[in-house]
């Protein structure tokens, strides 16, 4: 309650745009299945807010928000922690997710993955050792209706800095929370949208 009141007194967040640089092999820890050009949220990065990616997304940091969505693959690496709903064509969880997961094609929980929430996907794969609590909703491909678009196309890449955003130092090659970036650091890039507030 007190936290909420404190936030109200703060200045309204400014709309900003944030960019995540494509992963460089020499920077940060390599994502397990990231395709080239995947956006990476590195370890040590903490984002409070929503994330919208039009490229593959690898999360090795921490995201707390209402939704993380990608049009292709969203992978939560072993060090990744997401407290939000996750939606993408393919969702792979090797870290921790607290929230519902929607895979328009498939959801995978690997042996190191921990998921607390409900899963909905035509196909779900659990590996030995995976921890899952919740329900699984499956519709095999032959009976599935055509999948809805995974992600709403962002009209504009926007990131609204949260008044209560909790941020940490961004690792090289990883997404930096909008609220910690100055104008020189914030660049327009369509691959990843951070939105919170």
């Amino acid at each position: 309650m007190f936290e909420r009141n404190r936030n109200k007194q703060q200045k309204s967040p400014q709309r900003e745009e944030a960019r995540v640089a494509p992963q460089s092999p020499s920077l940060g820890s390599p994502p397990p299945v990231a395709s080239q050009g995947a956006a990476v949220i590195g370890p040590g990065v903490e984002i409070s807010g929503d994330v919208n990616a039009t490229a593959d997304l690898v999360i090795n940091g921490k995201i707390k928000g209402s939704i993380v969505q990608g049009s292709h693959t969203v992978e939560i690496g072993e060090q990744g922690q997401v407290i939000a709903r996750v939606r993408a064509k393919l969702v792979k969880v090797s870290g921790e997710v607290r929230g519902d997961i929607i895979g328009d094609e498939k959801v995978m929980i690997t042996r190191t993955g921990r998921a607390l929430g409900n899963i909905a996907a035509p196909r779900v794969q659990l590996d030995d050792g995976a921890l899952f609590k919740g329900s699984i909703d499956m519709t095999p491909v032959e009976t599935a209706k055509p999948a809805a678009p995974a992600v709403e196309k962002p009209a504009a890449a926007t990131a609204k800095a949260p008044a209560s955003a909790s941020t940490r130092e961004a690792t090289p090659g990883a997404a930096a929370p909008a609220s910690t970036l100055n104008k020189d650091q914030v660049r327009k890039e369509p691959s990843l949208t951070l939105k919170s507030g």
Partner: protein
Amino acid sequence: MPELKHALSTVPSASATYDGVAPKSVDESKKQPSKLFSSLIAPPAGGRRMTLLEVGAALPETVDYLSRYKCRIHFLDLYSEPMLQQLHEFSPKQKAEWFREVLVFPAGTKLDVCLFWDFLCYLDDKALRAFNDALRPWLHQDTRSHGFGVRHLAIKLNNQRYGIIDDTTLSVRPCQALQPKTWPHTQVEMHDMMSCFDFEQGLLLPDGKLEMLLRARPEAFRN
């Protein structure tokens, strides 16, 4: 109560692949044939989504097996609940409250299939009745269920959990959680306390356990 004795029989080939000993690790999981399971899982008429309750942790083979069906599976790992270890020490009212708290599903949910595995063996008489009462709102008149029972304490119940490999084969893995106290029930007791269900079929397994196929008792759903 239907004459279960007529349905009882042994499984001739079961002992060939199932020795009743829980494997020590996941890698050592064993297979257990099941003659009853094949008739349990059938998609509901009209292309409706099948809704299942599994009392236990989600295992890869179970998810893989069920992925061929249009279904929703609620995994309820009550073995990981510390309360289960001391459940027998609580009053009937407290037991009923606990089951009402943990057996919560989205509004409108009606379970087509319940997979109890060994869970009913870990409930004393009062707890079994409380579990039945808490489950009743989520059942319908065609609900079916599967589980194992022990009739007396001389039958060793291993601390294990189950998965589904195919229509006739279950996987058996060691359960990491502490094993709760076992409470044997005769068929008559089980029938009396699980009043939502009738025995449809039972098979006496080589290790002494009873494999049970249950069907919703129509009287339980008449207003």
